[in-house]
């Protein structure tokens, strides 16, 4: 059995190190890769913990789907070189670190003094084997006691789908008719971000060109910030 422990420990250490990598890496892509490493390690640990089906799901869903999604997003959005551990809020970091340590201590105390162990269930390894393996056992449980949660989860996924559609679809795709009535804003002053830093200048149009021509049928308004101009009062926006 000690081999099992050894493997578990090795996998755990790698998982923890990879997790630290997620937090410490400067580049989000590195973080994502570290996260993938963690996930894979955890999948292996699931196997040790007699959860083979979940190990597979872990690989497929997390590593295969979620992380890929994250990577796509990382590629899509413009990545800035954020000075993660420099500048910013040192106090916040110190406190974050301390809170983590304290919570670790508290959870450790709970783990070490733990006596409350739940009732031992019927799914001994023998029973699982009798059912035909972990997948079959999980299937039996899910399709007897967990019918409603499965349906509900389906609805949750539906919600997520609709939500993602609503949030990420371009305007034109949602309401083609409305767009023409909107005044669009093109922020020329700040190509990126809306920081207050000086240094950006509104580029002058080359001589001989007219804004009307450049903008086509749309009215062109020059502002420093996308929020600065809308055709409606800025609801709820803080006027400063």
């Amino acid at each position, binding site marked *: *059995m000690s081999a099992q*422990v050894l493997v578990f*420990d090795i996998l*755990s250490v790698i998982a*923890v190190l990879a*997790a630290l990598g*997620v*937090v410490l*890496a400067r580049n989000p892509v590195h*973080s994502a890769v570290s*996260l993938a490493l*963690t*996930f894979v390690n*955890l999948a292996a*640990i699931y196997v040790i913990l*007699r*959860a083979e*089906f*979940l190990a597979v799901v*872990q690989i497929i869903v*997390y590593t295969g*789907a*979620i992380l890929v*999604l994250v990577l796509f*997003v990382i590629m*899509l959005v*413009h*990545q*800035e070189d*954020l000075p993660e551990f420099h500048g*910013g809020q040192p106090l*916040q*970091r110190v406190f*974050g670190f301390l*809170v*983590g340590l304290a*919570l*670790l201590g508290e*959870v*450790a105390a709970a*783990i*070490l003094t*733990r006596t409350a*162990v739940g009732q*031992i*269930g019927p799914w001994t390894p023998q029973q699982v084997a009798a059912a035909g393996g972990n997948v079959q056992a999980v299937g039996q*449980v899910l399709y007897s*006691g967990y019918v409603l*949660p499965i349906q509900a*989860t389906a609805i949750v*996924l539906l*919600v997520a*789908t609709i*939500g*993602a559609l*609503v*949030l990420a679809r371009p305007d034109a795709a949602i309401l083609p008719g409305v767009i023409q009535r909107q005044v669009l804003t093109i922020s020329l002053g700040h190509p*990126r*971000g809306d920081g207050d830093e000086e240094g950006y200048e509104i580029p002058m149009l080359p001589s001989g060109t007219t804004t009307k021509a450049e903008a086509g049928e749309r009215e062109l308004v020059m502002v420093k910030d*996308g929020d600065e101009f809308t055709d409606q009062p800025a609801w709820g926006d803080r006027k400063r």
Partner: protein
Amino acid sequence: MSHLTPDHFLFLSAALFIIGMMGVLTRRNVLVIFMCIELMMNAVNVSFIGFAWEQNSMVGQAFALFVIAIAAAEAVVGLGIIMALARRRDTVDINAVRDLRE
């Protein structure tokens, strides 16, 4: 180091959970924060599966499965929001997003 005890996976779970939490508390990149939350969820899954292993129960495994499913849903919505933000503000720095305060 004779047997695999619950303490093993519990500490693993705790460590991952807390690393994830520290990441949420310290990082500025929205995407990284999001990944850290995923990490925390995974840590919880480790606990569930470990408890199931300890108690010869399938409940924990089932629960973990749902956690993964829900996490996926959350990922979709979360990334959607991040996309919308990035499109609108062209930033993923969480500290740059503070128009709403006080």
